[in-house]
């Protein structure tokens, strides 16, 4: 995660890996444990899938993550290209 706190595709990939793992864990839990633990495991999968989807949307909507100029200006607010004029 970039220190400025902007969402990036790296974060999305991190969560997606967790989703994959959670699905495997849910399958295992349902075989080995009772219905309650099985439900809790699949609920976990749902929570992580939702988080992945939200992160993807956040990256798409965040101009700093998608626009190279915005990324540059975020790192170098003093640069000539990044001057902002208030009317």
């Amino acid at each position, binding site marked *: *995660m970039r220190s400025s*706190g*902007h*969402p990036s595709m790296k*974060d999305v990939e*991190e*969560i*997606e890996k*967790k*989703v*994959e*793992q959670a*699905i*495997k864990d*849910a399958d295992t839990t*349902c075989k080995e*444990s*009772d219905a*309650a*633990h*099985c*439900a*809790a*495991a*699949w*609920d*976990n*999968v*749902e*929570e*992580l*899938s*939702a*988080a*992945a*989807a*939200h*992160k993807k*949307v956040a990256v798409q909507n965040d101009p700093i993550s998608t626009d190279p100029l915005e990324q540059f200006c975020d790192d170098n607010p003093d640069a000539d290209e990044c001057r902002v004029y208030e009317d």
Partner: protein
Amino acid sequence: MAARQGRQAANSVDLVSESDSEDSEDMSGSDADEPSWISWFCGLRGNEFFCEVDEDYIEDDFNLSGLASQVPYYEYALDMILDNEPPADVMLTDQQHEMLENAAEMLYGLIHARYLVTQRGLNAMLEKFKNCDFGRCPRVLCDGQPCLPVGTSDLPGTSTVKIFCPKCEDIYYPRIDYQCSIDGAYFGTTFPHLMLMTYPMYRPPKATGKYVPLTMQTLNANRVRATPAGLQARSRARVCRVQAAKDGKTVVIGLAADSGCGKSTFMRRMTSIFGGSAKPPAGGNPDSNTLISDMTTVICLDDYHCLDRKGRAEKGVTALAPEAQNFDLMYEQVKAMKEGKAADKPIYNHVTGALDAPEKIESPNILVIEGLHPFYDERVRDLLDFKVYLDISDEIKFAWKIQRDMAERGHSLDSIKKSIEARKPDFDAYIDPQKKHADMIIQVLPTQLVPDDEGKILRVRLIQKEGKKLFDPVYLFDEGSTISWIPCGRKLTCSFPGIKFYYGPDTWYGEDVSVLEMDGQFDKLEELIYVESHLSNTSAKFYGEITQQMLKNSSFPGSNNGTGLLQTIIGLKVREVYERITEKEVVPVS
């Protein structure tokens, strides 16, 4: 027409006479008694828009280049316009003469169109403009602005002349009937704009007034008899409310929905009505679930989990179960914020599944709590001023989850199914029963218009509780009756499968409700505005506000169907609730 025939009679007399002396006598007589053809033409009733073209402009053949091919009887028509005697040896029948008259008119019109864009032409028209010869703008808010003639085409025979208002920059039909049949090509499409560019001092200031339709319902949604007594009673009631105004209090809205049901889209639509963009608290935990905009703060109730992911896995408890929520803390903090105090609210990190350090949230104008259990605890429920429940049917939920997760590594149709089925018992036991407490419920179901397996076309129902003081339900045509409405037909063409509306009374868990339902999809902007203009009690502040909001958020999912429309309406209702509680007016955002 009588005048023209008179002219024709006079001409035929000239034509049939043969002797030169008679001709010259007649000619000198004609010159002295009769006005020139141009003056006569411009003096005809209905021809007030025309200016008199300078004869030397017409006599210069260069200015007329290309017209010979457009006008029949060109030579004769030109002679007529310039009052030249036609060749004496030519005899024309009456019918040919009438055609010659028309040709002369067309020729003059086309020359006129070219003359208008010359300096002298502009001058001549300027005098007429200052004299208000072209009429005034019919629009009330233009204050009688003098207009200019304009054509919508430069080709003769296409359309008639219109008048252009420089203030509202729109075109209207000429004010006098007789003027309406003049061909627009005799003025051209350029003329008024060239005129205003040449004489910028005649450009009026832009039309500032905008007509806001006001009806009894917009002024005050409580229906009252339209009698002087009724109106007086209503204005008195308003004064009483102002005196009892709870200034500075926070309005609390609750939104309940399962995961993956479009809560975030709904939140964005709602906050868009109040303006500004909702962002996580600046400089805080990047995984915060809270969104803050100018007037609203949205809190995610997952932050009140008392069991984190590890804890729930150990105990075999889902996030849907009440055992995983700290309702005491939820009640305490929502109460504090409602009373104007800040709260140090925990953060549930959806990525790590752990509870992070708390963040400080200030009390906002409008507090929205969204999550799985906003109406579960009675104490919290009583703090809510307005409650919304998103009820998504099983088939649609399944379709949406497929759309969301199928592209994910690891997910398959099978895993999505298992996930939904495993959560269903807890969902049915703890979440679903909350819907009876909501003030408004949005139900999303598969369409009934066509057999649709993929859940692309949606039937969306807005269920509105009756008898609430803080809002009035939206209705179609006649409140309390049952209406089935297909807007597509003669006035509006829709693409397949079209749109169908339903409105009617019903009961919901023992309480009276009104249901407004939309099945189908919007394809064009005009469908949306057409539908909006037929809905009543929408709480929109100006005609087209709903359409404007839908356009503003056209990238959000559901913007072309009932979810977008009805969620936008709920957003307007939230604004109405806020205004009724605080007695403050919210200026609509453009």
